[in-house]
């Protein structure tokens, strides 16, 4: 049970809801018990449990979207995907309306010290919280958990093609949000 708080915190950051996260921890603990013979000790226990948690989170979203839709992005435009950041960042010819590097110095400098990293993480978290729910889900499964686009798409209930378009949208919304926050170098 020592790992349960870590698992819980991990689940909460992905599903954003205490009760669902508690259920997921319970599922993981039971699955880990049932598969305990498969744990060979080569990885840390926590890492192994987080691995199981990733699948449980995917299952959770798949169950919510039991009928993966083949809708194109245009058809789900009015859903909770947020507005297209490209229309606000680029003009009709596809040229920048604003300087894309202003306020982004912290993201082009290397290396980044710990204090700066903490600022960046806080800003990223704040901007992620501002993303529409399903866009946040897509982005966090892809970037935090490094899951393949096909799995991420299945979890969000869209086709892989639409997931790629939506991931692009999420990244640009986040980038634009971070630019507004202007983390000083």
């Amino acid at each position: 049970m020592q790992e349960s708080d870590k698992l819980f915190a991990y689940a909460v950051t992905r599903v954003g809801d205490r009760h669902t996260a508690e259920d997921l921890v319970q599922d993981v603990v039971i699955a880990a018990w049932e598969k305990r013979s498969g744990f060979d000790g080569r990885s840390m226990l926590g890492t192994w449990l987080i691995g199981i948690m990733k699948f449980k989170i995917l299952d959770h979203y798949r169950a919510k979207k039991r009928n993966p839709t083949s809708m194109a992005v245009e058809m789900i435009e009015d859903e909770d995907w947020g507005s297209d950041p490209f229309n606000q960042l680029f003009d009709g010819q596809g040229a920048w309306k604003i300087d894309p590097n202003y306020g982004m110095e912290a993201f082009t400098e290397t290396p980044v010290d710990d204090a700066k990293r903490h600022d960046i993480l806080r800003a990223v978290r704040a901007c992620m919280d501002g993303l529409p729910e399903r866009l946040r889900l897509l982005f966090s499964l892809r970037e935090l958990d490094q899951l393949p686009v096909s799995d991420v798409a299945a979890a969000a209930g869209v086709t892989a093609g639409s997931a790629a378009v939506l991931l692009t949208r999420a990244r640009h919304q986040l980038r634009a949000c971070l630019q507004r926050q202007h983390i000083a170098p």
Partner: protein
Amino acid sequence: MSCNHSSSPKPPLSYRIAHFLMGPFMKMAGLSCRHFAELCSNEMDRPLSRGERFRYRFHAMMCRLCRPLPLQFAKLGEAVSCCPMPAPTIGEGVTLDEAARDRILRSLELVSEKDDQTK
């Protein structure tokens, strides 16, 4: 999430002049900054086709303003994946409460009892 960049400066004058003159051609050829920004994200999810790769490299070579974009996206991904994210809106230091802990323990006991019975 609105995208109000009223405080951000416009791109440099040289960029605006170049795009005023070349913009329509760049857009037609799929070489605009917008196309490049899309390709920057696409390459994080899948390998680019040969044509896309050419357009990506060509644009990166000639557009000083867009050149840092891939690094910005890489840093964003790095920042997100390398460190534990701060807890979300429900509060810092998120932990299981006692009731949930008991419930999980009970369910684990039930499963282990079933295990023993089958053995």
